[in-house]
């Protein structure tokens, strides 16, 4: 299958690996002006407006990259007919703040998506119950040596949005940290789904390719369930679209480092080993499955093989080490819970995939000043073909429930999980008489500060929106 890369927004199929990002949350005051603003973004005329970046290959990296998402309220504000709006999946229609309040009927005492307590929508600075309704999210990316470019393009976007009656609700900046790490110190950006016919393989991966229809709507794509996530939406709007959960996540780096020290002293373990067990990778990116002891391996693990592993034998690697008991990588480790690969879980294997595009915000953590009071975290776009089946499932079930496989009972994801007030549990297998070690008192390490669900339309979809008529029949 050949994808129409010129019709797909670029952030789904590749990470831009830029140094700076600025996310604009905009409100639509007047539909016709907003439609003209969208038309400019896909006009092909760089002089009149910055242009949305498509997935087309480039010879030279552009000076900026720009992507667009629209909330369900944003589509309504643009004039999309109620009959079309009603055909969107309920998760997108209801939005992140409402969905944060929902509970799994089979787990009424659970925490749902984990956006509870001080992560509840009432505390959010974006998309929350006390913040203005977001209609459009524009994500602008530039490189470090072009730092002025961020302000230049921002100024153009601001001028255009003002002319077209858009209000700037908030902006959210992010800046890459040295060596591509996140604030907790781990190297990031290693594991992403390879989408059939779409993304290039920078890292080798034992996991099968994701089906195109797992991420892109419409055309003649097929998802892993044998259908198409377009549903009854018009092809002109939905073809080559995907969905995004835009998240602002505060990270408690001081709390994380203190936890490592506390558990290391209590269990007489290397704090770096505990850090690796919590995530499933050493902080330099080496997966525990390939390097259970850390340090150099023989033969050395190549850069391109940092994602080339599995937790169980599977077709294509039938003699691979079977870590069913989590002796190398804990079953509850962050990357294993959120992507169990071929290990045994309820439901179809490899069925919940997510593309992550995130960048830290805030200055690097200084261990000499652990209580500096500076907020740190990341702004992330989590892209998929169905918010409920992919993004929400991963957060609700794999991160915050404990039935999906054996060995998780009574635990939540150690990094993202909404831990109980008394602290969560984390299980580490050892080769000595202490096996298994059950570590307790795990605090919540990541707080949700914002969340918005967006449709990321194809370029044709943006044009359809820019020209959408006010007639009730828009099909």
């Amino acid at each position: 299958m050949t994808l129409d890369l010129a019709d797909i927004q670029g952030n789904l199929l590749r990470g831009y690996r830029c140094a700076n990002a600025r996310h604009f949350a905009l409100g639509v005051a007047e539909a016709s002006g907003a439609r003209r603003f969208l038309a400019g973004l896909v006009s092909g005329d760089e002089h009149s407006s910055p242009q949305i970046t498509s997935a087309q290959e480039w010879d030279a990296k552009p000076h900026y990259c720009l992507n667009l998402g629209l909330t369900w309220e944003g589509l309504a504000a643009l004039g999309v007919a109620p009959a079309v709006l009603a055909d969107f999946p309920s998760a997108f229609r209801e939005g992140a703040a409402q969905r944060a309040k929902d509970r799994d009927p089979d787990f009424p005492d659970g925490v749902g998506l984990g956006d509870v307590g001080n992560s509840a929508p009432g505390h959010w600075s974006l998309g929350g119950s006390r913040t203005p309704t977001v209609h459009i999210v524009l994500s602008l990316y530039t490189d470090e040596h072009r730092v002025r470019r961020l302000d230049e393009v921002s100024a153009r976007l601001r001028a255009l949005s003002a002319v077209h009656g858009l209000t700037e609700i908030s902006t959210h900046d992010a800046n890459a940290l040295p060596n591509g790490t996140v604030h907790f110190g781990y190297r990031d950006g290693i594991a992403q789904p390879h989408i059939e016919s779409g993304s290039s393989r920078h890292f080798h991966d034992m996991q099968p390719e994701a089906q195109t229809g797992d991420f892109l709507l419409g055309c003649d794509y097929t998802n892993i369930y044998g259908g198409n996530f377009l549903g009854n939406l018009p092809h002109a709007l939905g073809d080559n679209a995907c969905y995004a959960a835009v998240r602002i996540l505060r990270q408690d780096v001081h709390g994380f480092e203190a936890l490592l020290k506390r558990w290391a002293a209590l269990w007489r373990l290397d704090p770096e080993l505990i850090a690796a067990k919590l995530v499933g990778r050493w902080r330099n990116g080496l997966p525990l499955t390939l390097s259970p002891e850390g340090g150099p391996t023989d033969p050395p693990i190549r850069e391109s093989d940092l994602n080339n592993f599995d937790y169980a034998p599977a077709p294509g690697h039938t003699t691979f080490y079977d870590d069913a008991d989590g002796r190398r990588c804990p079953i509850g480790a962050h990357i294993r819970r959120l992507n169990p690969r071929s290990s045994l879980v309820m439901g179809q294997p490899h069925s919940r995939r997510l593309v992550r595009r995130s960048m830290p915000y805030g200055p690097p953590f200084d261990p000499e000043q652990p209580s500096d009071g500076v907020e740190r975290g990341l702004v992330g776009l989590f892209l998929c073909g169905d918010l409920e089946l992919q993004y929400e499932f991963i957060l609700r079930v794999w991160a915050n429930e404990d039935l999906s496989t054996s060995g998780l009972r009574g635990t939540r994801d150690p990094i993202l999980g909404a831990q109980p007030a008394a602290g969560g549990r984390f299980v580490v297998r050892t080769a000595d008489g202490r096996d298994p070690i059950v570590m307790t008192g795990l605090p919540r390490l990541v707080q949700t500060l914002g969340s918005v669900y967006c449709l990321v339309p194809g370029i044709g979809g943006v044009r359809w929106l820019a020209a959408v008529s006010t007639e009730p029949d828009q099909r």
Partner: protein
Amino acid sequence: MIVAGLNRGPNAKIVRGIDTHPDVPPLPPVPTGGPSLNLSLEGQVQNALNLFLPLKSPAQMPALLALLSASANEVHEALASLHYVHFARFLPSPDGSVLMVITTYDGGLDSYIMDFVGVLGDAFTEILQYIVGAPPLPVKRYAREFTQFIKDHNVSQTGVWSAYPDVTVIDILRGARRL
């Protein structure tokens, strides 16, 4: 009478010959909802899905049973692949007017129903052609409508007992070293 064979392709075959018999009066509404008595045990991880599916005509029950028999191996294989279904059985009413689908599974219905669609959507496309008020077919194309149909036709249960309320399929099979 047409007996449909299961089509495992992405678009299962729609058998146009199966229609409501014109002489058969419509059946009463499916008895979903209503008072429920929750007797499940504390900490129980197992749940029940009990589908009550009235046939378009009781005369078609033999054909439907033949279809189920012919596809039994494929259905069993599909259910086994999900690792969350403890038991499943088809139960025809004595008068042939209703097919009940009785299952016990782990976890949440909403969370895992699409896995069910993925492996059994084609089988249900065939089965639902015999059923009154079936959703638009094929199931995989109209997955959202199918999942709503399943919820609407899940009969309220009056109490569940389990010898091992907090044990999942994976726990059991792991314990038996079958996985």
